[in-house]
């Protein structure tokens, strides 16, 4: 009987590496970055991607959200904190992402050094389709969710959940290397950083 591809490949690998030396992994890079002003660095870096970013005292977040989304039909994912839920969203039920104007979410973690927001489909973050299909994404980041660098973010995240790391609006540089924002993902990313 002929061997399966799996057995063949595994056998070829073990022959190929037979006698190769063992390898030590030096992890001398920064496990944690020292950043004094996490909110300041995060907002600067998000802004570099041409996203819109505001720093807002926690108590003022509901009013800011209401102002920003007024007139827009927003997807409001399950588990979004009540105080972040736009005033007129509740009666209509959750908007269909395929016809809505935008989506509002929280996030799982945010990274200052890279200006990145990570969604893990947890409460208030929506399904992957809900945060992808609408053309506008409003994301509320609590200041205590911001970590300095990539290693801290990786260690906080659960790989079993589907993750979407977002660094600015979708973009392409495929035409003569000119950056164009907004191809298939939301063309506008707006970030509210809630500080206490």
């Amino acid at each position, binding site marked *: 009987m002929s061997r399966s591809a799996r057995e063949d490949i595994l056998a070829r690998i073990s022959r190929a590496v037979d006698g190769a030396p*063992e390898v030590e992994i030096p992890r001398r*890079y920064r496990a944690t970055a020292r950043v004094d002003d996490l909110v300041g660095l995060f907002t600067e870096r998000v802004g570099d991607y041409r996203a819109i970013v505001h720093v807002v005292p926690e108590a003022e977040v509901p009013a800011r959200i209401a102002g920003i989304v007024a007139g827009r039909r927003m997807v409001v994912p399950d588990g979004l904190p009540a105080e972040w839920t736009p005033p007129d969203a509740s009666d209509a039920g959750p908007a269909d992402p395929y016809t809505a104007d935008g989506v509002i979410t929280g996030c799982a973690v945010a990274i200052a050094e890279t200006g990145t927001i990570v969604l893990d489909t947890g409460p208030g973050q929506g399904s992957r389709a809900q945060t992808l299909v609408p053309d506008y994404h409003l994301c509320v980041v609590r200041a205590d969710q911001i970590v300095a660098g*990539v290693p801290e973010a990786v260690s906080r995240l659960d*790989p079993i*959940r589907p993750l979407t790391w977002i660094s600015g609006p979708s973009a392409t*540089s495929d035409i003569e*290397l000119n950056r164009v924002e907004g191809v298939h993902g939301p063309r506008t990313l707006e970030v509210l950083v809630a500080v206490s």
Partner: protein
Amino acid sequence: MSATFIGMPGNFPKNSAQAVQNSQLRYNLRKATHTIRGKRASVVGELPDWQELRAAGKAIKDETLRHLDRYLLQLEEAVTAAGGHVHWARDAAEANRIVAGLVKATGEREVVKVKSMATQEIGLNEALAAEGITAYETDLAELIVQLGDDFPSHILVPAIHRNRAEIREIFLDRMEDAPPGLTDEPAALAEAARVHLRERFLRSRVAVSGANFMIAETGTLVVLESEGNGRMCLTLPETLISVVGIEKVLPTWRDLEVFLQLLPRSSTGERMNPYTSTWTGSAEGQDFHLVLLDNGRTDVLADEVGRQALRCIRCSACLNVCPVYERAGGHAYGSVYPGPIGAILTPQLRGMGSELDASLPYASSLCGACYEVCPVAIDIPEVLVDLRAKAPHGAAERAGMRVAGWVLNDQARLAAAQRAATRLRGLVPRRLPGPLSAWTDTRDLPDIPEESFRDWWEREG
């Protein structure tokens, strides 16, 4: 349907001589490579621990390769436990058969694709077409390449050899729903692609992807992208089929903390690419299939010198600093893997039986710039020299002697080539370093000056 590189005729010197005559191509390439290289340098410079990340990245990959069988089994177990299905493919034909079978089982005749080098390597689109299945590329550059019946020319920006006017022509010609008043503004062209693909994303029930990384410990796959077409393909269709080279596995979730720093900064020169998606098995109820592809990789793994090429994370930094690539263009390499990495990977994956593949180890001046920027420290010059020694005489000489003759006839160039070669940390064999700098065999290039190639490049670059 875009063409496939498999069996492409010619050889590197001949192909590159054609490319250097094309001034549009050279202008585009020069602009692109210099721009990205500047961005890369500035974001790499921001990280005080870049060399430590690079050392860790290299070692993690080496450790993975050392125990690749074990990690693949661990990966298989984790993906299966999370509701996914794992398939193994010895070669391109087997992988294509598996994918075609999976698509047919869904009853669909169309798939959307997110840019993947592995599926280009195996000629998947053509194989699916032969089975009556249409594969739609969704990355803007891949769409341009596919609509134009063309070949990709750069790992990161595959349509960089096309200018905006050509792209407009291609769209008007080949895209049935292109707006008649389409201008050649990049924003207008991107908008036309957005509208064109939107329906397709919402309609498609099967997607095919590759992956940048697979995590053995958790069974997680990772895709980095910019446009959001990746998210569309990975998220919306009911069935997702990912075709991934076996060398893409990483042992632990934690290892991503290294590679999510190394890859975006080396590739697009950004602190982070716009979107990174990770998923484990059947995410949000999707039917998920992982096809693990060998296709020559275990041969590469068996070579003590050459196996380091399997560390490659396809960032394309080595293309952007390569003086040969900049002038020869991506097509001259006759493979989906152009530039310095292509020069060492293609001959190892395909063997050096053809004139083209045997000429690839000579597609370099051995200046070493590729090694310095490589985020996983692949010593490309070392592998090139080793491959030159191994190239079968007949094929290499048929490809090389023409250029070698030219090099030998020109004492100044020969001297320059030898000086460049002698700087190479004692890697160069005592015999002549082969037909170096074949790409300069054309009128519209300056002579190589009386200095080392490297010095010249740094001065001119």
